[in-house]
């Protein structure tokens, strides 16, 4: 790249050029020092002089923390015009985007959006449209996000609004109406929409081989929104509307909508609940998953959400018990169920509970969502208002603090005021490598965990008679844990239908059941009391499959049914997810035990051994929870950063509060 002026040149009195920075659409930019040593950027205007100068003069005295300050306009000896500007030392969004070919973390997107929106709001408020908003014009600086090149900004007045002006700006970010010479503030909203799309996905929505092709796409093609998170699609669809009059009306509106949709997407927060009931009902149709998970944030026993008041009180009581007491109580209850002959009562109770829950679910479907919202605990309303408060903060991150010494991304600021609720339903980006490490670590740990749990079962109950049985029990428990952990870790951070996931786990359960049925023959413990369901009678055949053969021992099909039902009944991925409430929750394990008892109770007619089934349920839950990777609440982020030990120093990571960015940069060193 050739530049007109050499280092040490002094085209303007008082300034010495040290190096060229880049060549923009409107001229060359140099880094220069004043005679006293002040750093400035000098922009030499070589063409489009009139447009540029007129624009710059309008903006000469604008002051805002998110705009690159213009100091002066000067003429050199050759009558060329120079704009003297603030020098921004940080990287441009253009460069930062190159570090994230697959899209930026959400925190980063919100950081840029906050800064750009604040700057644009200021400009629009003064009747100025930027017109050339693009990643190459937005910079990160120790003072925050800065929008540059406001020399192109146009004064909005009716006379000039549709005047025939030269087509300028980078075509990727150019709104369709620019082709008609119309430059309203909607142009900037459109450009911001394109930049948001690019930040999230890593690519621009309209790309092509030639300028004309891209322009044509802006005019005619619909953006492909399928690669965006579901909640964000309507927001960007509105911002990228072809008709400026039906586009998102202002940059504030775009920012507000985006922050709101992000909050809905990543915390599954009950945003509509705090507005009005009809809206909530309407919203719940769109986001059944979000609604389902939101209740589960609040209720302790996950699979019995939004239960009647009595159970809610019990749950609340359970939550205030200190952890050691929970363990003791949980252990006592588990032993009581396993060792005493309480099978029947627990199974019957469980079945009644199950039927009641089903009825309740049906009722909520027919009666509608307000019913559910009303029956929710007061704690949920509190979370709702806190979330709405957070929204307000997120919407105007920079407005109330125009001068900031450090770029504070909106997300951490919100985190200071209230701890975000991260749940397994929180959508997030997890790097492939991170996911793989997580799975392999979990599997390795599950080896030790199943040994430990089997030892506990061996020592506390009379179920396992000798080491062969213990090995068998441990092996099946571990296999079951793997079958649950691997898919759950793959699903982690992604959205997905609960029913499909359950079906998938159930089919894996069939496999585990088959192994559990076949393995005893190899371990020579086939005809042992361990498997004695003591329910002899006529064989039960379903089609050609013998579910019970009448010998009192369970068949292969029976084993498979048990594991499939157990895997189906619980929402196992909540027990596996890194964002579960605690590494090990006694209540989850206990509830799984109850589910196990209920299932074995159902299979009793097919002589499935009750004690073994129930213990397995408890043991699998324990092993899964103990071995699956877990992130403590304070380390939870929306994208997976490698652990600090693996962290390499990157060049110029500007913000100490954003370790994610730093980690991403490290891979380029």
């Amino acid at each position: 790249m050739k530049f007109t002026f050499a280092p040490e040149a002094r085209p303007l009195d008082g300034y010495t050029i040290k190096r060229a920075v880049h060549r923009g659409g409107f001229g060359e930019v140099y880094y220069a020092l004043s005679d006293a040593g002040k750093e400035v950027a000098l922009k030499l205007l070589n063409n489009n002089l009139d447009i540029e100068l007129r624009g710059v003069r309008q903006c000469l005295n604008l002051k805002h923390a998110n705009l690159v300050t213009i100091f002066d306009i000067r003429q050199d000896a050759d009558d060329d015009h120079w704009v003297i500007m603030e020098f921004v030392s940080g990287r441009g969004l253009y460069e930062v985007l190159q570090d994230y070919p697959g899209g930026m973390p959400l925190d980063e997107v919100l950081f840029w959006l906050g800064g750009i929106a604040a700057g644009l709001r200021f400009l629009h408020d003064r009747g100025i449209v930027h017109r050339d908003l693009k990643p190459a014009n937005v910079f990160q600086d120790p003072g925050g996000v800065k929008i540059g090149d406001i020399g192109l900004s146009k004064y909005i007045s009716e006379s000039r609004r549709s005047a025939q002006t030269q087509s300028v700006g980078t075509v990727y970010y150019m709104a369709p109406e620019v082709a008609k010479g119309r430059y309203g503030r909607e142009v900037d909203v459109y450009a911001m929409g394109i930049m948001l799309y690019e930040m999230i996905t890593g690519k621009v929505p309209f790309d092509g081989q030639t300028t004309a092709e891209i322009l044509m796409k802006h005019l005619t093609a619909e953006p492909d929104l399928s690669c965006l998170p579901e909640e964000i699609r309507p927001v960007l669809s509105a911002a990228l509307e072809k008709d400026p009059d039906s586009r998102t009306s202002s940059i504030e509106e775009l920012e507000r909508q985006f922050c709101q949709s992000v909050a809905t997407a990543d915390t599954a927060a009950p945003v509509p609940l705090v507005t009005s009931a009809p809206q909530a009902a309407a919203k719940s149709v769109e986001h059944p998953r979000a609604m389902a998970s939101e209740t589960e944030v609040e209720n302790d026993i996950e699979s019995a959400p939004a239960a009647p008041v009595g159970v809610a009180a019990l749950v609340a009581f359970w939550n205030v018990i200190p952890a050691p007491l929970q363990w003791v109580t949980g252990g006592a209850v588990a032993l009581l169920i396993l060792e005493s002959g309480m099978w029947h009562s627990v199974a019957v109770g469980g079945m009644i509970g199950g039927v009641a829950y089903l009825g309740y679910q049906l009722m909520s479907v027919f009666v509608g969502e307000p019913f559910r919202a009303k029956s929710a605990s007061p704690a949920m309303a509190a979370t709702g208002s806190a979330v709405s408060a957070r929204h307000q903060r997120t919407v105007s991150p920079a407005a109330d603090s125009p001068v900031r010494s450090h770029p504070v991304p909106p997300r951490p600021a919100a985190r200071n005021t209230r701890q975000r609720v991260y749940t397994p339903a929180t959508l997030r980006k997890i790097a492939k490598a991170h996911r793989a490490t997580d799975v392999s670590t979990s599997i390795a740990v599950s080896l030790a965990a199943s040994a430990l749990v089997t030892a506990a079962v061996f020592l506390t109950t009379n179920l396992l008679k000798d080491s062969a049985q213990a090995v068998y029990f441990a092996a099946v428990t571990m296999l079951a844990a793997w079958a649950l952990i691997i898919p759950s870790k793959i699903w982690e951070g992604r959205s997905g239908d609960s029913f499909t996931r359950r079906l998938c786990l159930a089919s894996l359960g069939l496999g585990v059941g088959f192994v559990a049925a076949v393995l005893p023959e190899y371990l020579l413990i086939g005809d042992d009391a361990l498997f004695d369901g003591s329910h002899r009678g006529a064989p039960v055949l379903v089609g050609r499959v013998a579910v019970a053969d009448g010998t009192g021992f369970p068949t292969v099909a029976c084993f498979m049914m048990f594991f499939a039902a157990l895997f189906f009944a619980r929402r196992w991925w909540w027990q596996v997810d890194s964002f579960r409430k605690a590494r090990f929750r006694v209540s989850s394990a206990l509830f799984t035990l109850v589910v196990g008892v209920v299932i074995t109770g159902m299979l009793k007619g097919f002589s499935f051994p009750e004690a073994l089934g129930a213990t397995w349920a408890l043991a699998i839950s324990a092993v899964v929870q103990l071995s699956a990777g877990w992130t403590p609440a304070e380390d939870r982020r929306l994208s997976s950063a490698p652990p600090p030990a693996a962290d390499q120093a990157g060049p110029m990571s500007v913000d100490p509060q954003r370790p994610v960015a730093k980690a991403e940069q490290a891979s380029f060193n």
Partner: protein
Amino acid sequence: MNSGTLNLDRQRRKNRWYCDTLVPQQEAILKGHTVATSSCKKYMLWIDGVGAWQLCVGQSFIIGAPSFEKQSADIALLANISRMHASIERNGEEWRLTAHQPTTVSGRTIDQDTALCSGDEIRLAERVRLGFRIPSILSTSAIIDFESDHRPSHSVDGVILLADHCLLGPRRDHHIFCTRWSEVVVLFSNGGKLRCRSKAALSVDGKIAGDSFDLKHGCVVTGEELRFRVEQME
């Protein structure tokens, strides 16, 4: 008697000077470093379209706040740190950091000195964070990145601690990543002089240069698509 009092006074004065300045125990080492840094040569590389880089040539480099009276630290940061906060020495292929004031390296508090590995984060007085990396496997030369907002008094993108050579080129593992360049330019020190070598046809101050040439203070190196200026710092 009188002379005895005088001696005592003199001693006290000496002691007071010693106490007042509150110089830590490593003072002796520090002085050694000061002598050592006098041999450290510092250059600024102003590279068009890339940035400004500080190149340090020597065996040992001091990191600290700028000083207006004495010799300033080699890497002088506008930060609330000591004028000689820490120093980095090269011992063959190994880099070591000696802490004179509170310093941590990748979270470890450094009492005396420690070996530096590529990817380490050096933290001075809590808030100043520097990255240490050795980008190229072909060279021992290291880069200091500014990770917190603390910089020298002028915008500098990073500091190169020259061990053998410094690569300027289009790859991420070159010491200075110059996106648009097609050729690599190598800077190295030979006989106390900074020299430059490249396969690209380069000219210095407008005159066509050979394969390898000296870089003098103020010279401008120009190639087909590159241009940079070398400035020797005080």
